[in-house]
């Protein structure tokens, strides 16, 4: 809009400045010659800017091109007058105010056009760059998510297969049972790849299948208590809950040889689904930091999905390790 107003103002000024010439024949002639000269100039400026070398600052380059073309335009204009109206040229050149005004107008028009072209070109370049950056970000994000998902599965799968191998030798019927559960688990794993948001009920069902497999692997040592959640209508992104549970199992179950209780509770409040998972843990055994891959991955994933870092919290006390997840609803 501003560009249009500026263009209109310039055109008006451009027309008006010829009125300063009192002779009617000269006025007409000058206007035609100048318009022609300026028109050709514009075209040349556009070409020059298009071949813009990217190492120089865009405004500086535009000003340089504009100034050079101001000189060319003024010179050409003078040559035109001298060639076609030789008797007039002397008078014209001595009419200093007109000459200065003309030169000034050329200066403004050429520089202004040059800057417009340059900005347009710069904008185009920036847009291209931005589009590429967005592409890169997207593909990075996808790759990262894919990797995070991949990292969740293999060991669990290998260990489960090993348990099946053992069961085939000692209790073939239970091996069949285990294969059934593992297949259920894998089937929903594959299915959920395409879905980003899951109903919490589905996710709980998935988690329960997962726990059923762990129960076969670890026998009576694993005891999981669920509180609330069965009638909650909420959604959760895939692969958020499982790593937290894996972590609870890793530090709870894998961290001891005794019986382990993992507590799991859900609540929905103010469009925020809160999930709390707690497991026993022995601080004297765990080496300082090292929340393990699972939780860092979850934190990262929550950040990628919601752009917030406050959605996961972990609390360690002497016996319990608690992870609190907050999942915003309807965003």
């Amino acid at each position, binding site marked *: 809009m501003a560009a249009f107003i500026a263009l209109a103002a310039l055109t008006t000024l451009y027309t008006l400045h010829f009125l300063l010439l009192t002779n009617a024949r000269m006025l007409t002639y000058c206007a035609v010659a100048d318009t022609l000269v300026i028109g050709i100039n514009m075209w040349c400026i556009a070409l020059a800017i298009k071949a813009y070398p990217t190492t120089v600052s865009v405004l500086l380059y535009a000003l340089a091109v504009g100034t050079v073309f101001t000189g060319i335009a003024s010179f050409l204009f003078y040559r035109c007058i001298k060639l076609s109206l030789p008797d007039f040229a002397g008078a014209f050149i001595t009419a200093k105010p007109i000459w200065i005004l003309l030169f000034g107008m050329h200066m403004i028009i050429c520089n202004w056009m040059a800057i417009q072209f340059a900005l347009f070109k710069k904008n185009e370049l920036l847009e291209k760059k931005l589009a590429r950056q967005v592409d890169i970000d997207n593909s990075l994000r996808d790759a990262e998510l894919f990797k995070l998902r991949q990292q969740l599965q*293999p*060991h669990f799968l*290998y*260990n489960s*297969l*090993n*348990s*099946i*191998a*053992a*069961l085939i*030798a*000692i209790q073939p019927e239970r091996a069949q049972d285990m294969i059934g559960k593992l297949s259920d688990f894998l089937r929903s794993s594959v299915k959920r790849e395409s879905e980003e948001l899951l109903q919490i009920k589905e996710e709980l069902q998935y988690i329960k299948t997962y726990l059923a497999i762990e129960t*076969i*692997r*670890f*026998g009576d040592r694993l005891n999981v208590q669920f509180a609330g959640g069965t009638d909650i209508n909420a959604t959760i992104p895939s692969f958020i809950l499982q790593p937290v549970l894996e972590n609870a199992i890793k530090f709870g*179950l*894998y*961290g*001891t*040889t005794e019986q382990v209780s993992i507590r799991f509770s859900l609540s929905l409040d103010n469009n925020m689904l809160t999930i709390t998972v707690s497991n026993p843990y*022995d601080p*004297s*055994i*765990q*080496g*300082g*930091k*090292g929340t393990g891959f699972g939780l860092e991955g979850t934190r990262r994933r929550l950040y990628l999905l919601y752009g917030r870092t406050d959605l996961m919290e972990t609390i360690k006390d002497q016996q319990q390790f608690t992870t609190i997840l907050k999942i915003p609803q309807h965003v």
Partner: protein
Amino acid sequence: MYKVLLIDDEQLSRELLKNYLAAYPQLSVVAECADGFAGFKAIQEHHPDLIFLDIQMPRLNGFEMLELVDEPPAVIFTTAFDEYAIKAFEANAIDYLLKPFVKDRFNKAVDKWLQQATNHTIAAPTIKMEEVVAPDTYQHRIVVKYNNTIRIIPEADIQYLEANDDYVKIVTADGSFLKKCTLSFLEQTLDPQVFARVHRSYMIPVTQLQRIEPYEKDSHIALLHCGAKVMVSKNGLSKLKNMLGW
């Protein structure tokens, strides 16, 4: 008759090993353990000839357990994790069985050990190079034997480490502990983001560093938050500068 010990936290895994071992009457399972602590005790009690060792286990992992044993028996690792293969290789393992493994693969490992045990020859390890993955699994704790009990020292408790003949002295606020290993071993196993080998005989957690003062030509002294003073070599100084981005 050889004595065999099974150390794995999953009962089913041990059952599978026993099942496969049934084909070898000359091997008898003397004990089964579900974690590294129990494994360590069983090794001291039974002096087995061969152990099957899982790596990821409660309380004390397989490698940490091996570090505590003065004369470790022959080891065949059994794990679902392939990222430890290079470490197992360094621990002179007979073999590295990736779960789930089939009977043939198991037999190969045991046959190799039997051959070695009967001929007293050292066979080439069967760990293939493609199985060897760079480990990014640094330890964040050190395990030591202390008055015949096992003590786990988290890295955050360590003030500094000092080489002491065949031992490394681990200094903490609760006193110091000796571990039979070299400082270079700990340099490799501990997280290099946390610990810096500042001298031939010293390694410090960088967070312990309070300030550095010149000492003699080419050497400095580091003052630690705990009040201790530790020698810093020319090399050590540049390492610290690198880590702290001076």
